[in-house]
């Protein structure tokens, strides 16, 4: 039955509709795969009983002929999404044994459409990290290894569990969230497809907040088409999130295979970094060539404020985080470390409950919002953000349909290899992705090739607001040209 795990979501949907196999069989195959892959540490909570029961329900719905668009498809859910009755921790000790009484809007829409919950996926604590090493449940292994090496590599972060599980065929797709690159970077590190939709496309209700003005949910999937199918169910207006936008959700799958002839693709000159590895450069050119062959027109564009994006991001995101994480105080839920008075209770709980990276960002955020520093840091960062947004708007006004960039400055690295002495080394992972969050635009990462050590690399396409369809059409062209990549199983 293990070959059931190697199907794409589209193929599985057909098999279920044709009754070639049942959702229970498909779900069991993935549950077995999860069990066999515990060394990857991708799942922090497995829910086999719930999975089987949801699968049986999906089978019944399929038999009755009222199957939803994702009926019987087993998925993994990033532990940032609140799942009713299933422990949700954001991979932080401070949410120790938190079991929500509510379901996030995004996941409830997946269940509405018939999907099956396999379990909760590992991530960087409160989604703060680029390697999944800050999780209180420990790091996640990347199914990919360097040629001829047994060293375990990181899957990227913060949605490391999602990317690893999808790449290792443990689930047919996964939810993820992206604040500065947390969907696209791990997708690129694991040869999976990840899309961060336009800010406001998916409801944030029920997702543990990191930085509210940047956070956005999206899928990590095995193919561009699979990502389109998942996003259609995840997206939509939610009156419970006033920043979600009330515009219809298109049938994203219909964009797959649509001609990209005549589309204008921008190549931003500021993304050509000093000392960029030659293989990244090569990959980028290959991507441009593939799109050109498909009939697109490639133009050089300028995004002059790109170099300020990362520093500005590391002011805005921690500022919001420092406030968003204030609610984890040991008073109402989660971890409580007693103290002689309320201040001590706060101090003990937060000292014990938060990891080092979270503490660092809470402190940075508190600092930049402090009296006397607000104008110099937060206000200035918001101004930079407006300029970054304008850079993109200027491109789109000139008729550019999408922008092509590398997804990451390098391939996956080893556990413990980066950021030990200097956290900025880790932050640099997001250099190509944060601009997209700062501007609120949609961005997709698609696998495009391998580096000299046999590790996958991805390309990023950035689109106009709410034009995810163009990204799917272009992403499909790259996927068709580059082919799909699977890691050799070692776990």
């Amino acid at each position: 039955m293990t070959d059931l795990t190697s199907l794409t979501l589209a193929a599985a949907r057909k098999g279920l509709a044709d009754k070639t196999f049942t959702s229970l069989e498909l779900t069991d195959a993935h549950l077995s795969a999860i069990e066999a892959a515990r060394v990857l540490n991708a799942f922090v909570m497995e829910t086999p009983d719930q999975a089987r029961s949801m699968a049986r329900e999906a089978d019944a719905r399929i038999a009755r002929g009222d199957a939803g668009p994702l009926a019987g498809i087993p998925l993994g859910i990033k532990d940032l999404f609140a799942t009713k009755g299933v422990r949700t921790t954001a991979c932080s000790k401070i949410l120790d044994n938190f079991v929500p009484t509510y379901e996030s809007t995004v996941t409830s829409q997946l269940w509405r459409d018939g999907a099956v919950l396999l379990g909760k996926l590992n991530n960087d604590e409160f989604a703060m990290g680029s390697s999944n090493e800050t999780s209180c449940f420990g790091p996640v292994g990347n199914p990919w290894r360097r040629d001829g090496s047994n060293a375990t590599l990181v899957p990227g972060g913060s949605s490391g569990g999602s990317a690893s599980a999808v790449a290792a065929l443990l689930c047919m797709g996964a939810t993820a969230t992206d604040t500065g690159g947390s969907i696209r970077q791990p997708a690129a590190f694991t040869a999976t497809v990840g899309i961060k939709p336009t800010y406001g496309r998916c409801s944030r209700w029920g997702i543990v907040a990191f930085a509210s003005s940047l956070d956005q949910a999206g899928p990590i999937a095995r193919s561009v088409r699979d990502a389109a199918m998942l996003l259609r169910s995840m997206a939509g207006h939610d009156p419970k999130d006033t920043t979600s936008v009330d515009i219809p959700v298109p049938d994203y799958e219909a964009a797959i295979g649509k001609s990209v002839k005549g589309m204008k693709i921008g190549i931003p000159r500021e993304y050509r970094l000093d000392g960029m590895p030659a293989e990244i450069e090569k990959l980028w050119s290959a991507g441009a060539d593939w799109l050109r062959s498909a009939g697109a027109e490639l133009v050089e564009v300028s995004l002059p404020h790109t170099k300020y994006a990362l520093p500005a991001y590391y002011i805005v995101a921690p500022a919001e985080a420092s406030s968003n994480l204030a609610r984890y105080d040991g008073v109402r839920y989660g971890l409580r470390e007693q103290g002689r008075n309320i201040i001590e209770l706060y101090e003990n709980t937060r000292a014990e409950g938060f990891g080092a990276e979270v503490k660092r960002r809470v402190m940075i955020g508190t600092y930049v919002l402090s009296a006397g520093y607000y104008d110099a840091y937060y206000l200035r960062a918001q101004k930079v953000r407006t300029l970054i947004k304008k850079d993109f708007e200027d491109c789109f006004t000139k008729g550019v349909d999408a922008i092509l960039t590398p997804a990451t400055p390098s391939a996956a690295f080893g556990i413990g290899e980066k950021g030990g002495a200097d956290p900025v080394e880790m932050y640099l992972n997001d250099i190509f992705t944060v601009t997209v969050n700062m501007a609120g635009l949609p961005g997709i990462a698609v696998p495009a090739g391998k580096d000299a050590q046999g590790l996958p690399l991805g390309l990023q396409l950035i689109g106009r607001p709410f034009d995810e369809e163009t990204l799917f059409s272009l992403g499909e062209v790259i996927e068709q040209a580059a082919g799909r990549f699977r890691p050799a199983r070692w776990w």
Partner: protein
Amino acid sequence: MSTATHKLLKGATGDWEMVIGMEIHAQVISNSKLFSGASTTFGGEPNSHVSLVDAAMPGMLPVINEECVRQAVRTGLGLNAKINLRSVFDRKNYFYPDSPQGYQISQYKSPVVGEGEVLIELDGGRSVTIGIERLHLEQDAGKLLHDQSPSMSFVDLNRCGVALMEIVSKPDIRDAEQAKAYVTKLRSILRYLGTCDGDMEKGSLRADVNVSVRRPGGPLGTRCEIKNMNSINFIGQAIEYEARRQIEILEDGGAIEQETRLYDPNKGETRSMRSKEEAHDYRYFPDPDLLPLEFSQEFVDDLKAKLPELPDKKKMRFVADFGLSAYDASVLVAERESAVFYETVLDKLANRARDAKMAANWVINELFGRLNKEGRDITGSPVNAEQLAAIIDLIGEGTISGKIAKDLFEIVWQEGGDPRALVESRGMKQVTDLSAIEKVVDDIIAANPDKAAQVKDKPQSLGWFVGQVMKASGGKANPQSVNDLLKSKLGV
């Protein structure tokens, strides 16, 4: 500023002037909280009106309650204030268990309502305009319960997230009397508008009072803020105490330290709560979970068109239309319920043009007097507006005299019933039949020839005859007729 409108304090070294500004927190009347669907009902079991948003569960998001916005705009209009079509919600960050989010959602740089003004009235017909700096919407906090356990404090989040309007005055208030008049007037306006019930005992209206002193007209002194006052009288007492305290320090050559103080009504003094150094850095920033609050001018105009008549306007109308004195009109409009009662009486009167002024006297003197005596308020009055109107009709049409009317009022107060029917059944009707009165007059003149003879020399003794005739008629004789008859018969 003229010193006639306010009081100066005498110090050992000369006169001092108080400069007072107030921040009033007024709980908004709405069914649900500012950013959640939980009920705002007062009381109830602890934590029985708490939504996931109020408890700040992970991943919860605030959604603005439009009714609270409407209430804030109505209030702004009632304060003749500028309504800002675009305002911003900010987070005020601080840790305390009554604030589960770890921040209060408030409005810092861009409030929903800008500058306005309130006219306050003082004794002796003096009035002063107090400027309003701004009004903004914010979340109320929960309540800590310290008496439930010997070792722990509990928290009740029922009130947490209920909408508050913070109404900030300009530092235009100059003494305790003005401060009390300001709160009284503001409270009255809120109650007319139906935007806050103004119940200070329940904490629906609380005031933070900023007090400083200076030489009259001189540069501003350093202020101290007295927090969380929930009684108009205490506000007056606290201001007097605080100003005296500051004057004493200054006259001893000391300096005022900017700080937050609390008023202890038992000891009648303020004491330090925290100094400026201990003040929180709230790290305000725009709440990224909420879009800026935007609405159209039409939205504002629509609310304006439906605004009830407010006390200042009502007072002017009472004076202009019914000839009431400014003082009487002020008394009637001070509380919305009193004005409503008076206007209901007017509606029921048979001849409003003739009797409106008499109705005002009756409401103010007889009704309010009686209510005050028994410590009741107008909503619990045993005599309703319809009954009072009937009594006034009976006087106006000459069926009963004012004196009989007082007896009738007492009967209605005690026993209830229709005044007109009571007059009939108890024979209280005024005697206007001249022949009947004439007979009584003749009898009394005949029985008192000496006194009758004196009247020509001492016209003031006519009153004695009037009294005798009224007494003999059981008070039912028409006093005017008695007077006329006596005068002609005695040749006065």
